[in-house]
């Protein structure tokens, strides 16, 4: 899998004895081999190759390595492969063999089953570096081939008129994953991926990086070494969201009671809740007003078809009378939801807003992101109808206020004390069977132990959003090591040059930018993705031929 490293014995630090002298006879018993994990020499930010050799751990080497092995890593590897790098020179270390494994878990938990559509654009294609043909065109073609002309026409109208004349086209999650599988086979992901839980990353004294990772799989019969080291010259890191986000009062409730069944995060598996409601009915409180809340409402309304005794209280902090404003434009609002097709205005991916953000200062970026961002959901006719019907029939109600306290009643139900403000200042008490926290995922860099360690060891700068600061080409400036470079992408870079960092297209853009920077720096095997190469590589993609 890995080509032998010609420089592995390139020790730039002399051994601790003089070669001209005879090695002194040991005066003490030989020192114990360091078996701690991570090794003690990882206490320092820079490690010599000599120290690595002394550890007696398996060491491998590739010119390129990516940590995370999710969709961020996959996009980076795809860009490398298309730009000429062979599979033997890349390694992706992560805990899921399928690049969309973790994403899929989060999507399924947040109620996106295989047949549902993502909040993603047609041309956001992690399986295709060029974004063409997009998922809409592929779906139209599939429907056309099957003789479903009406459906093909409807899809064509949707892609033609979006987002103004029709709802925005979004691809089916299963179609995206199938396409990623196809591309994974084409680029040789199976030879590139390696199972591992990355514990620490350090610079080496010879201008490279060493990755310490564990290979023990929880709950499986493990053979072979438990720990390994991997050396690399060019490193990429995309570890995704570090944790689930919990509202402080719900976090406190869970810590105090140990009740992880009645209070759940929308991104954790909470199928038991729907099963219970289907059998017994009950009241559910939903917190958060983003797209995940919309999906939860859709699922709950579907459950109501089995058991009409399901009610929903949607707790929101304050009413939204007007949408966010930017320049001459204002974001539309209906039924207390702010609408936009994706989590940022479209122009943030490929248009003037992307360029504006890139050239802004860190403080200006924070301001722009707060103007463009915020909690929004997509305008979908079925969701509008659910809220309209629920409000009219009374099984869905919106309550405004802040939570004072959540406690468990003796019979097991959850009592929430809500304080309302303004002209209707009052205290309300709401008793529900379940509370679903749909406020999202935690993105602060310090919440991930690997990133926290990197920040600590290398004094990495954080941007005003509390994420790792990156250059416009997504290089982490504090990690430069001679000719060695480290790049980052994904949620850990929010607040940097790109708004939509955690989207398929954002990951692809970050990958292309960093690979281009490496190519300009003369990195091994990388070729310029100019017109000729781009066309020939696309033709290979179309013919399912390896790059």
């Amino acid at each position, binding site marked *: 899998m890995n080509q032998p490293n010609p420089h592995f014995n390139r020790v730039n630090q002399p051994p601790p004895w003089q070669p001209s002298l005879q090695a002194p006879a040991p005066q003490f018993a030989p020192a114990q081999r360091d078996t701690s994990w991570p090794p003690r020499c990882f206490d320092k930010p820079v490690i010599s190759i000599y120290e690595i050799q002394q550890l007696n751990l398996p060491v491998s080497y590739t010119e390129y390595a990516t940590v995370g092995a999710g969709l961020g890593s996959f996009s980076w590897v795809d860009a490398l492969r298309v730009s000429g790098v062979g599979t033997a020179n890349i390694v992706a270390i992560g805990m899921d063999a399928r690049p969309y494994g973790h994403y899929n878990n989060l999507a399924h938990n947040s109620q996106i089953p295989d047949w549902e559509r993502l909040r993603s654009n047609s041309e956001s294609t992690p399986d295709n570096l*060029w974004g063409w043909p997009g998922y809409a065109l592929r779906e139209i073609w599939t429907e056309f081939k099957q003789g479903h002309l009406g459906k093909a026409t409807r899809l064509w109208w949707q892609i033609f008129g979006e987002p103004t004349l029709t709802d925005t086209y979004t691809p089916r999650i299963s179609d995206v994953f199938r396409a990623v599988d196809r591309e994974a086979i084409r680029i040789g992901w199976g030879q590139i991926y390696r199972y591992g839980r990355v514990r620490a990353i350090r610079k080496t004294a010879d201008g490279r990086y060493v990755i310490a990772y564990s290979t023990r799989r929880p709950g499986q019969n493990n053979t072979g070494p438990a720990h390994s080291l991997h050396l690399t010259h060019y490193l990429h890191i995309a570890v995704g969201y570090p944790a689930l986000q919990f509202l402080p009062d719900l976090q406190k409730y869970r810590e105090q009671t140990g009740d992880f069944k009645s209070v759940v995060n929308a991104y954790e598996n909470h199928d038991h809740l729907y099963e219970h409601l289907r059998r017994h009915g009950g009241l559910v409180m939903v917190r958060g007003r983003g797209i995940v809340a919309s999906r939860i409402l859709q699922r709950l309304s579907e459950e109501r078809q089995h058991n009409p005794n399901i009610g929903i209280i949607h707790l929101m902090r304050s009413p939204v009378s007007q949408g966010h404003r930017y320049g001459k434009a204002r974001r539309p609002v209906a039924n207390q939801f702010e609408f936009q097709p994706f989590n940022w205005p479209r122009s943030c991916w490929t*248009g003037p807003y992307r360029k504006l953000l890139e050239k802004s200062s860190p403080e200006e970026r924070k301001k722009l992101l707060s103007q463009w961002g915020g909690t929004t959901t997509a305008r979908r006719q079925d969701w509008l109808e659910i809220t309209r019907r629920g409000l009219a029939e009374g099984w869905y109600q919106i309550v405004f206020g802040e939570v004072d306290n959540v406690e468990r009643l003796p019979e097991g139900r959850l009592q929430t004390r809500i304080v309302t403000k303004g002209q209707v200042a009052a205290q309300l008490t709401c008793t529900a069977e379940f509370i679903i926290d749909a406020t999202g995922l935690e993105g602060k860099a310090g919440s991930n132990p690997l990133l926290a360690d990197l920040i600590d060891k290398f004094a990495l700068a954080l941007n005003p959003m509390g994420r790792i600061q990156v250059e416009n080409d997504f290089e982490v400036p504090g990690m430069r090591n001679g000719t060695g470079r480290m790049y980052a992408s994904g949620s850990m870079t929010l607040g940097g040059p790109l708004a939509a960092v955690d989207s398929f297209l954002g990951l692809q853009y970050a990958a292309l930018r960093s690979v281009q920077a490496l190519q300009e720096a003369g990195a091994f095997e990388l070729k310029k993705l100019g017109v000729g190469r781009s*066309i020939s590589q696309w033709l290979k993609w179309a013919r399912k031929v390896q790059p």
Partner: protein
Amino acid sequence: MTPTLIGRWQSRTVLLWTVGLVITLFYMLIFGPVGIGGQAPDASKLLLILFYVNLLGIGWDALYIYLQGFRWEGDWPLAFQFGVGLVEGAVVYLLFQLNWLPGVRFGDGDFWRFFFHYGTVWFWTNWCLFGPLRVVFPGWRFNGGEVISKI
């Protein structure tokens, strides 16, 4: 792809003088020497019309970018792109018919010649805009349609 002003100008000019030029030369051939639909000795005026479509387009693009600013998404939907192509065509035709385009004289049968020429150019340049251009220039879509740009 959400265009920038520079991106609009570059994409428009590049597409008109590659795809558009090939189509124009084709029509010059079949309207001129081949003589389909009655021989038009001054079929070369199609090249000048292409130039005027490009020239007026520079102004149109500035207007479109201004209008984009009123949209929350800051974008320009596919339907708009196709629609404004028709408006642009109608305006160029009107100027053509009124003989207001310097160097171009409107003559018999020119409505149909303009109709086929402009219609084909409009259809194929838009088709390239929403598809194959991404394959030729991988950085194009990330830079608001700028052809001369890095990723």
